[in-house]
């Protein structure tokens, strides 16, 4: 819960930054960025770690299908599929 509150405070900081951004494209980008973060607050950890959590490993390298790939991942991970 504390984490979510702190994430909210970072969003507020970003929203304040909108008013300070003079470049119109950067301003539009920032507004769009805030809009795409907001729906994902409940999974904020994953959202904010997107940049650095880039490597999964080679579990899926030999899979011939989505099903095989997921089966390979199950050994080490809990999996949800959308």
């Amino acid at each position, binding site marked *: 819960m504390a*984490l979510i509150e*702190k*994430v909210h405070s*970072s969003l507020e*900081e*970003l929203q304040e*930054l909108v008013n300070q*951004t003079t*470049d119109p*494209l*950067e301003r*539009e*980008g*920032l507004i*769009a*960025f805030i809009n*795409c*973060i907001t729906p*994902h607050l409940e*999974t*904020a*950890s*994953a*959202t*904010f*770690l*997107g*940049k*650095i*959590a*880039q*490597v*999964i*490993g*080679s579990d*899926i*390298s030999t*899979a011939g*299908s*989505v099903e095989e*790939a*997921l089966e390979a*991942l199950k050994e*080490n*991970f*809990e*999996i*949800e*599929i*959308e």
Partner: protein
Amino acid sequence: MELRILEKSDINGLHWGKNYYVQTGQESFTLVANPGPLISDMIYFSIDSTDHFTIQVGQIDRFTFFGDPEQEITGLFVDCRKGSPTLHKKVELKFKPDPRKHLYIERGIAKMFTNMKNITVRSEPIWFSTNVNTEYNIGNDRLIVPRDTELENFPIVQINELPLPNRALQVILEREQQILRENKEYQQSFDLYMGGSRSRVTIKKRN
């Protein structure tokens, strides 16, 4: 942002750029950050290869490779950008670690590296936002394509189009530091592209 291009490739948006550095000895260098948000992630590879392509639509990569100067790395790249004149063109680059240059990879270019064992990469990403990619989320901006996918079966992606102020990227960095400081577990999401269809997968390491 000024691009100091050293060597182009056959895909526009994939090139070697010159780093900012001083030579401090015969083969010693001190690097300072390249222009941008001043965010650097250091990535160490204990494995040889990721064995699959990765595409990000909201991030320019700038990779500087450190390691044995005689170790030859192979990078494979496929242009997957919607509307690109080199759509689905494949490029192979063979190179050795060199602190004086970085590999610049535009959004929407699939990338994969082999012979990476014991290589360290300085990653200086630049993020972009979007009003077009409605499902974009920085937490799952990873589309994984298996290595042996035929070129014509690679996806076609729309890249994010809006720049972000540097301060926004630094706010995110501060949050990443906070999460790593306070939480030991987190989940990851990515898209898996196989057989012409995309599946979103969320994984969490088993205890």
